[in-house]
């Protein structure tokens, strides 16, 4: 055991001593912080209020009502009204080109009749502004049509009062503070982190195996400890580094996010600040962190054994890069399914992915974050994963044992099968 400990210690100390560890430690939270904050920031600022001219081609005063309504909307500044006519659109387009205007909205009588209007602007991809415009036009067009049919628009407005659906996730039987948008965001971030970290540390194990093989240190090592002890020490050592990395990220991430509130405070509209910001910061339940770490550990053990095999059967970096592709693809299946998993965590596909041990390490935490899961499913998935870890590690150790001493040609699948049986 002391020999295994020596290997664990070396892997840990050498890695934590390296520049890259600290670069990742610092950049990690910044990177993930950026993923969370930048979209929020963009949404909050969104380029500010749009300066818009309303081109009125209506004969019923509908255009005036649109302009009036938009004036009261903080998203827009109505800088003027123009009467629809030849050449008006062209001259406004020039103003947009010269950045004196952000855009102009053309409403005509047919807007009410057929529901057609036109918004020409330098930026038509700002989802929020387009939605706001559409909302205003919709409401006013409906009102105008109702009015013409003799219905009181005030009555209709009251009748159409929209339901504000607040979503809160129930985990176990407790209501958590996680909202649905947050759940999705959390699931997504978890998938990214799991994928990246399993890959990074799996590849770490691989290059460690490869380094010992190419430098031939392995021969001295194997004369002192069993290949399995060496593999075990390596996986545990690198795993410990990853846990240490998480610890740093957790502490660092908490700091960045607590600062984020202050950061966002300055950017969001003043009256919305407190509530909005508090809501959008992820509140992550301890159970979620537990599930995340458990599956990370399982995924890391499973994949690092496979990455170790890749290192053991390759003789140089290039070969290893090629040989690692199948392993990467396996991990990517779950990663690429994040959307399906998060939007429909109860589907047959999602259940299948969480029972297959190679996809479960990403699929399960994503489903957990997106919606609650029955306990027996977690138990079953963890059981299968544990069995797979034992099986894969056993197979990997048998290949590793022979592979690390091999030089030259990479073995074929048939040869690998023979090594496993040997």
């Amino acid at each position, binding site marked *: 055991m002391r*020999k295994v400990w020596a290997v664990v210690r*070396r892997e840990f100390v050498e890695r934590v001593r390296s520049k890259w560890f600290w670069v990742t430690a610092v950049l990690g939270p910044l990177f993930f912080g950026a993923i969370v904050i930048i979209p929020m920031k963009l949404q909050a600022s969104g380029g500010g209020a749009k300066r818009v001219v309303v081109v009125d081609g209506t004969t019923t005063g509908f255009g005036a009502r649109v302009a009036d309504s938009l004036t009261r909307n903080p998203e827009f500044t109505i800088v003027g009204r123009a009467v629809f006519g030849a050449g008006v659109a062209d001259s406004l387009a020039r103003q947009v080109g010269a950045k004196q205007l952000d855009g102009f909205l053309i409403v005509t009588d047919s807007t009410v009749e057929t529901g057609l209007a036109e918004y020409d602007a330098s930026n038509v991809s700002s989802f929020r502004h387009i939605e706001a415009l559409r909302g205003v036009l919709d409401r006013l067009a409906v009102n105008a049509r109702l009015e013409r049919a003799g219905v009181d628009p005030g009555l209709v407005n009251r009748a159409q009062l929209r339901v504000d659906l607040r979503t809160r996730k129930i985990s176990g039987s407790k209501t958590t503070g996680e909202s649905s948008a947050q759940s999705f965001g959390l699931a997504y971030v978890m998938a990214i982190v799991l994928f990246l970290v399993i890959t990074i540390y799996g590849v770490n194990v691989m290059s460690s195996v490869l380094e010992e093989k*190419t430098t031939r240190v392995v021969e001295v090592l194997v004369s*002192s400890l069993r290949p399995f002890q060496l593999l075990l020490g390596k996986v545990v050592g690198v795993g410990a580094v990853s846990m240490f990395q998480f610890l740093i990220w957790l502490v660092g991430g908490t700091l960045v996010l607590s600062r984020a509130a202050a950061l966002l405070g300055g950017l969001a509209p003043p009256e919305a600040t407190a509530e909005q910001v508090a809501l959008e910061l992820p509140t992550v339940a301890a159970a979620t962190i537990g599930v995340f770490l458990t599956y990370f550990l399982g995924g890391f053990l499973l994949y690092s054994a496979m990455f170790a095999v890749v290192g053991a059967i390759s003789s140089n970096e290039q070969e290893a890069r090629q040989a690692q592709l199948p392993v990467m693809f396996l991990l990517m299946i779950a990663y690429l399914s994040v959307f399906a998993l998060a939007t429909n965590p109860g589907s047959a596909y999602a259940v299948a992915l969480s029972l297959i041990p190679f996809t479960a390490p990403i699929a399960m935490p994503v489903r957990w974050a997106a919606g609650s899961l029955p306990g027996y499913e977690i138990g079953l998935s963890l059981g299968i994963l544990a069995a797979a870890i034992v099986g894969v590690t056993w197979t990997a150790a048998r290949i590793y044992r022979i592979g690390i001493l091999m030089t*030259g040609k990479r073995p074929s699948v048939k040869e690998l099968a023979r090594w496993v049986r040997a």
Partner: protein
Amino acid sequence: MLTPMVALERVTKRFAGHTAVDGLSLSVPPGVIFGLLGPNGAGKTTTIRMIMDILEPDEGTVRLFGQEFGGRSHSARAGYLPEERGLYPRMRVLDVLVFLAEVKGVSRRVAGPKADEWLDRLGLGDWRLRRVNELSKGMQQKVQFISTVLHDPDLVILDEPFLGLDPVNTQVVKDAVVELRRRGKTIVFSTHIMEQAEKLCDELCIIARGKKLVDGTLSDIKRTHGGHHLVVGFDGSAGAAQPVFLDRQLVKKADDYGQYAELELAAGADAQMILQRLVASGVRLSRFELMEPSLNRIFIDLVGSEAARPEARPDA
């Protein structure tokens, strides 16, 4: 009789398509320098790897210190320098040494000071906190040698220890080997360079194609495989001596180096006769000496040009 430090009994190792070691038995008594000699591809490294537990023999047994376990179980008592050298390039010299000692079962507290002591002794004291890849090849070789002997093993196994060393470092390693024996350690080393083996070995075993050709003490082997040998040195051209060398009545075999020749006398031939003929031929002699054959001579005679050609080794 003393328990042999290393004992191989009819050990066989096959790789896909060929037999690397074929029924090899050998025994290394304590306190000697034992040479494992053979041409390239003879199975020396495979034999050593089986002794060190890196490979398992297909047949036969390997005993170390009288027990039926290979090097791994005795890693604290055995030091191993593999043929293909290598250290962790990005680790500090001292850390590598301590780690490799730890893996053999030595505690960090013991290993640290010992590593410092050895580094100082081999003139690497200033380099202890440098990374391995900042060291020259020769310095790395020394570090690797230190890692082999740092834990003060009773048995030191060196696979081609002089390979790739410059004359200065060859001397350093040779001195260290002699010093180890003086302290009662047993050294097994493999080589295909006979001059070194001849100077260092007490006992040796010559193998070719995985089979033992001969083993025993150096003097015994010389006696049994000797025959009558003659060394002739020339002052100037040896051209005129050719007819003498080719006279099968007198000379069974001649190994002519131009300025120098080793002759094996034909059965019943007289060295005096050869001297007379050489003088008569007009060559100027600088040396004329009856002697034991060199190990190199015996090796080449035994192994033969045929066996020196290794079989295809798919798995070197």
